[in-house]
Structures are given as structure tokens and as C-alpha cells.
């Protein structure tokens, strides 16, 4: 008992440590009190924002957009990645788009999206879709490619049809890689929704944070940041949990970022 508590502390100690340092810096006014509010002030601001319903309102809007774009990217990304892995034609057609397009800051295309899809949610969802498509497609592609030949041969040896091989051998074999792509794309969906909301909108957490910052309400701004952090972290943990349920035969790295 004592040792598992001890291990918990040892694992997480730096978080309260950093928060404590923050609090000390804030209280002693080392940085301007207004610009670096104390944790108590932030907590109060968060409480107020929750009470007024503002935080939930904007959070749910951002979340809705992010998840919609994300879901679209999952569907099309996996389909495309699988198609590229199975068909040389598809691969030849689409591979340059992915390898050339990857390092390009696609966010710069956002104004075009605004023209095409308007100022509201659709342009954001489309942008999220585009950005999330990349890692999911690429990972689905590599995952399918990487399935051990021996597994396919064994299936054929045991009389499986092409269809059975696809659903029972290839997809499960590609699953870890696909999930890695999903895990990379999830923070991207949040990043893109926040950025697009900051650029020009009247709703969503991105807008909320930049608006209250512009009104000098920094404690509330930090509360908004914290809200984003909570959402991002929770979503990630949900995904990890899902992965461990679905891909029970392979354990990934437990913690920091990557799969």
C-alpha cells in the first residue's frame, strides 16, 4: 500500500511542484500580478466562467467541431490509407500529395476555406479534416504494408478467402499503426480548432481565450487554457483506454505523447 502511494508520488511529483512555484511567483508579484494570476485567482475565474455557463458553451462548440473533423478524417483517412496500400494505382496517385503536402503549413489555406465554406463551423471542420487526414492516412498505409507476410500465408494455408484475410488478418495487423495515427491526429484536431477560432470567430474556446485576453482578464484566459488542457488530456486518455481494450495483444509506451 505504502509503496504504491510512494510510486504515485514519485511519478507525479513535478506537477504540484511546478504549480507551487507558479503560485509563489504569482503571489510575490515577481511578474506583474495581472499578467500572472495566482492559482486561486485562476480557479475563481474558472468557477465563475463555469457558473455563467460561458466555459461549457464555448468548450462544447470547440469540442463538437474538433470531433466532427476528426471523425471525418478517421473514416476517409483509413479508407484512403488502406486503398493506397492495396492498390498500386491509388498509391501512385495519392502518395505525392501526402509526402509533398506534409511539411506545408496547410493552415495558410484557411482563408480559402473561409471563402469556400463561410465563417462558421464548416470551414473549421474542413480544415480539421484536412490536417487530421495526413497522419491517419499515412499510418493506415504503413500499417497495412507492415503486416507480416507470414500471417497472410498462414491464413491462405488455412483456407481463408480474400475477404476474410482482409478483415481478420490485415486490419487487426494494421490496427496498432492505425491507432498511432489516431493518437497523433487527436491533438492536431484540437490545435486546428483553437487556431481557426482565434483567427476570426465569435464562438469557441479559441475565440474565448483571445477575447478575454484582449479584455485583460488574464485569470479567465488561463482558466480557458486549463479547460483546453483538460479536454486534450481527457480525450487522449480515452483514446489510450480504447486502444488498450481493442488492441489488447500489444502494449504501447505507457506515457509521454507517442504511442
Amino acid at each position, binding site marked *: 500500500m505504502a509503496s504504491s502511494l510512494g510510486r504515485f508520488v514519485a511519478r507525479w511529483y513535478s506537477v504540484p511542484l511546478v504549480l507551487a512555484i507558479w503560485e509563489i511567483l504569482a503571489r510575490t508579484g515577481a511578474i506583474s500580478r495581472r499578467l500572472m494570476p495566482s492559482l486561486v485567482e485562476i480557479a475563481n475565474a474558472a468557477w465563475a466562467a463555469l457558473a455563467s455557463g460561458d466555459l461549457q458553451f464555448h468548450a462544447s462548440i470547440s469540442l463538437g467541431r474538433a470531433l466532427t473533423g476528426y471523425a471525418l478524417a478517421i473514416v476517409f483517412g483509413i479508407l484512403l490509407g488502406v486503398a493506397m496500400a492495396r492498390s498500386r494505382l491509388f498509391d501512385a*496517385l495519392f502518395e505525392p500529395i501526402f509526402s509533398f503536402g506534409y511539411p506545408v503549413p496547410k*493552415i495558410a489555406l484557411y482563408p480559402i476555406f473561409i471563402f469556400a465554406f463561410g465563417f462558421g463551423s464548416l470551414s473549421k471542420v474542413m480544415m480539421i479534416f484536412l490536417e487530421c487526414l495526413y497522419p491517419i492516412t499515412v499510418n493506415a498505409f504503413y500499417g497495412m504494408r507492415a503486416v507480416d507476410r507470414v500471417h497472410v500465408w498462414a491464413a491462405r494455408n488455412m483456407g481463408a478467402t480474400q475477404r476474410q484475410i482482409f478483415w481478420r488478418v490485415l486490419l487487426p495487423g494494421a490496427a496498432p499503426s492505425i491507432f498511432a495515427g489516431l493518437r497523433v491526429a487527436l491533438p492536431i484536431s484540437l490545435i486546428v480548432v483553437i*487556431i481557426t477560432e482565434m483567427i476570426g470567430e465569435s464562438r469557441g*474556446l479559441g475565440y474565448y481565450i483571445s477575447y478575454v485576453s484582449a479584455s485583460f482578464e488574464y485569470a479567465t484566459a488561463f482558466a480557458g487554457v486549463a479547460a483546453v488542457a483538460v479536454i486534450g488530456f481527457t480525450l487522449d486518455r480515452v483514446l489510450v483506454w480504447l486502444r488498450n481494450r481493442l488492441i489488447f495483444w500489444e502494449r504501447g509506451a505507457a*506515457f*509521454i505523447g507517442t504511442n
Partner: protein
Amino acid sequence: MSAAAFYSRARRTALGLALPLAALVAWEISARLGDVPSYLIAPSVILASTWDMATTGELWQHTSNSLVRALGGYAIGAAAGITMGLLAGIARPVERFYDPIVSLTYPVPKIVVLPILIAWLGSGDASKIAVVTAAVFYPTFINSLYGAKGVNRIYVWSARNMGARPIAVFLKVILPASLPQVLTGLRVGLALAFIVTVAAEMQNSRNGLGFLVMTAEDSMRFDLMYAAIIAAGVIGFAGDRLLVTLRRRALAGQAIGKEGAHG
């Protein structure tokens, strides 16, 4: 190259260009026919005006603004990320310190602190560089950490067996062994640096490519807008190619598989 190999190569390249070319041609035609919304000006016009702006220098000023911020933040963020990541990879206490913090903040878009950074540092270069630094830290840190951690202990044992002191082990074994992964982190970080810079400039800036895109869009100067987008794409692409070449040079002879090419 044999004839057969040449033809299959050529065919593959042709297919690769097929979709983008088809899209461009369709775009050009419909733009000429005048059947499109105003923002979809013809690709030929875009190319011409972009070329103009590139040669007259109108584009350069903003491009260099963006480059300064992106590369400045990249340099600082990567230096910090690599140093801390390698350290955490070889010293458990350091890793244990960073692990929860990085894991908790990893899924948070670093751009989210931009408004606050602007309040702290003003809306000039400093705030952008700061946000880029924060963003670039993560992939470089995580990749360096895993690079150093993943060094086969047999290499370390053999080094100590041959009489190497800890410093020599670090410099001559850990560092070269983690290099492939560190370079992967650098590649991801560079792409991120450009993305975050442009995004930050789109949000709040007085110059730079992101700013240019937004202002051009506002004043309906679409030629300028596309020029800025193209410029952003070019520097992102060029930067990536540079790092890929660097990586190939640095890892020559090791026959390391091409890292999951898309980062």
C-alpha cells in the same frame, strides 16, 4: 537504369502528378470561363503575379519576417528539447520530473497561450518566437528522450568494457546511437515551427506571411493571398527537404531504414 525500370519510374511519376495537374487544369478552365467565385482566380494568373512579387521583393520582406520567427523559435526550442530529452533519456530522475508535465501538456495546442504571451511580450517577434519555442520543444524532447532511452545497453556495456569513462560513453555511444531519432524529432519540429509561426501571424501580427494571407484576404487581393500561401508552402517544403538530406548525410553507412517518411 534499365528500360523497364525507367518506364515504371516514369509511369509512377506521371500518375503522381495526375491528380494535382487535373485539378489545376480544371481550375484554370473554369476560371477562364468565369464560372467561379471571385477568390478562385486562375492558376496561371496566380503563378504570374506570384513570380512578379517574388522578383520585385514584395514577398521577401514578409517571408523573412516569418523565417526569422520560425527559425528563431526552432533553434531555441530544439536546443532545449534535445538537451533535456537526452538528459532525461540517460538519467531516470530527470525523466521522472518531465514525464507528467510533458504528458499533461502534450495534447494542449501551444498556440493557446499566444494571447497571454502577447500580453507579456507585446505583439512583435518575441511572442511568436516564444510560442514556436514552446511548440518545438515537445517533438524534439520526446524523440530525443526515446532516442537516448532506446540505446541498446549492450553498446553501453561494451563501451565500459573497453574502458570508456561516463563522459566518453555519452559522447561516443549515446549521442551517435540516438542521432537517428533526434533527427526525426528535428524534422517534425521544423514542420511544426512553420505551422505555428504562420498560425500565430494569422492571429495577431504586423507582418509576416500569415499576416499577409489575412490582410490580402480582407482586402480581396487574392493574388497577394495566394502568393503568400505559396511562399509559406515553399519554405515549409524546402526546410523539410533540407533536413531529409541532412539526415541522409549524417546517417550515411548505417543503413537505417527511412524513418516513417511522413514524420
